[in-house]
């Protein structure tokens, strides 16, 4: 359309097509319904305009009609619900082997750290065609990580991790907005997602790095003395953390939980709450002694202790995968 007057957002992720397809379906359904109601109202209002000597006809109602126009819309609604649920489920289920990026939101900026170690502020470089999983937390209030071009949004909470993922399909620079009101500079808490061709991305990545996040985590693990109790043999006073990530853990109070990012984080900041069975409650809390970024690094390190073979992130070929994800929306390009 006009140059600075877009009417439709960029479509730059695999999810965007799915969301747009459902949106267009809803526009059609709503358009039809609106047209139906509008034309019925206009037609009846004109056709049955008050005329002398022509009284209104008292019609009590029609139960069959009521049932029809209750059940049919309900049926349509269920279809919309189901379609929306499928799109949502996909958007909330990051694929395995996604590249991970840790995000820390604070008033009023986004701090991002790649697993490979690059740090960015208010900007995120990603290669086309790669699954990227964002592991996010906030240092203060609730924020929300929103990339319209990816049709992706996830609130970022203090005190826990939330996760979002995307796979970019089109190189370019796209808006990043904070979408949960967070104070004075809420509308200034914006940035860009820079999607690059894989070659360009590699070039960018190699231009200055502090080493992978997990290596930073290993350093912190040693500096803070974690290694004294969490030994890799069976003699530590704390559980052996090798291979623990992603597996079920038996707790002292009888429950079983999965050792995911939130669990590791909780153990660092609030050790008593989910103590592992068979160990004494002697771990001190590190609340206030580690920053969110340091917690992220530790989590990355512990994760790295669970990967079978260290692999580099996989870049999937763009075209076939994109079609795969777009099964639902066949008319989307």
């Amino acid at each position, binding site marked *: 359309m006009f140059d600075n007057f877009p009417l439709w957002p960029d479509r730059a992720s695999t999810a965007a097509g799915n969301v747009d397809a459902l949106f267009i379906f809803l526009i059609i359904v709503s358009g039809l319904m609106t047209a139906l109601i509008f034309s019925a109202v206009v037609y009846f209002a004109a056709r049955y305009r008050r005329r002398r000597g022509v009284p209104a006809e008292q019609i009590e109602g029609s139960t069959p009609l009521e049932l029809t126009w209750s059940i049919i819309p309900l049926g349509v609604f269920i279809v919309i619900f189901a379609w929306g649920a499928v799109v949502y489920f996909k958007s909330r289920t990051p694929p395995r082997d996604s590249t991970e990026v840790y995000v820390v939101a604070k008033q009023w900026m986004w701090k991002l750290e790649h697993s490979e170690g690059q740090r960015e502020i208010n900007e995120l470089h990603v290669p086309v065609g790669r699954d990227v999983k964002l592991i996010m937390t906030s240092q203060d209030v609730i924020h929300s990580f929103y990339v319209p071009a990816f049709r992706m949004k996830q609130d970022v909470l203090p005190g826990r991790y939330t996760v979002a993922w995307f796979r970019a399909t089109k190189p370019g620079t796209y808006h990043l907005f904070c979408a949960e009101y967070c104070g004075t500079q809420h509308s200034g808490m914006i940035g860009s997602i820079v999607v690059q061709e894989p070659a360009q991305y590699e070039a960018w990545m190699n231009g200055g790095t502090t080493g992978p996040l997990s290596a930073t985590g290993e350093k912190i693990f040693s500096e803070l003395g974690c290694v004294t109790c969490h030994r890799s043999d069976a003699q530590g006073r704390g559980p052996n953390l090798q291979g623990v990530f992603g597996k079920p853990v038996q707790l*002292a*109070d009888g429950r079983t939980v999965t050792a995911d990012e939130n669990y590791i984080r909780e153990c660092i900041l*609030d050790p*008593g*709450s989910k*103590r592992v069975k068979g160990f*004494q*409650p002697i771990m001190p809390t590190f609340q206030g002694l580690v920053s969110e970024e340091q917690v992220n690094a530790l989590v990355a390190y512990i994760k790295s202790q669970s990967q079978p073979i260290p692999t580099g992130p996989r870049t999937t070929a763009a075209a076939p995968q994109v079609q795969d994800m777009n099964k639902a929306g066949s008319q989307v390009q």
Partner: protein
Amino acid sequence: MSDSTAVGLHHEHRPELLHHFATEEQQRDSASLGMWIFLATEVMFFGGLFCAYLIYRGWYFGDFAAASKSIDARLGGANTAVLICSSLTVVLAIWAAQTSRRALLIGMLILTMLFGVTFLGIKGVEYKAKFDEHHVPGASFSFAHEEIPGHPGQYANPRHAQIFFALYFIMTGLHALHMIIGLGLFAWLLYAAWRGRFTPEYHTPLEIGGLYWHFVDIVWIYLFPLLYLIDRHK
């Protein structure tokens, strides 16, 4: 119904019948329904607190158990007995009004209020104890080295215990506020009873005041075990 423009016309009715009602029965039924609806709103009001409490108790059960142990269940139990007795005296007061026993009515109302004051007094003793032990949430809160019942050697998380105490004070405080309002209501009922306003035909204020009092009692019946009796057997 009399239109007030028609001067001098006035139906014969008891002075208690308000003009916008057609009959005394309508007035009485309306007052009763109104009070029940008001109590429904109170259920929702306290309900939000109970909801928050149950969620945190589920998440931090051990810490809550430790905190619960530190409040005095004997005092809480005594208060439960006091309130139950006060509900009895309320019922007796209404019966007294229904059977024209003015002296008994006044006596029961006074006794109800005494029970209410006793309740508040015991509550005051409890609050003071919490204040002295630094269990009042805020700057001077401290809850270190309190064992979780049934888990020797494991200590409660003070931050979670503080949530228990915050909810304890808010819930029992709100309840106590309702008690105080109840006492105010009953003071007015006492005055009206003393002035002879209640008869077997008309004692609606007593009935709806009684409903309110019973409600405040029932809230306590839920508060007491939830707050005071977590894992007491351990």
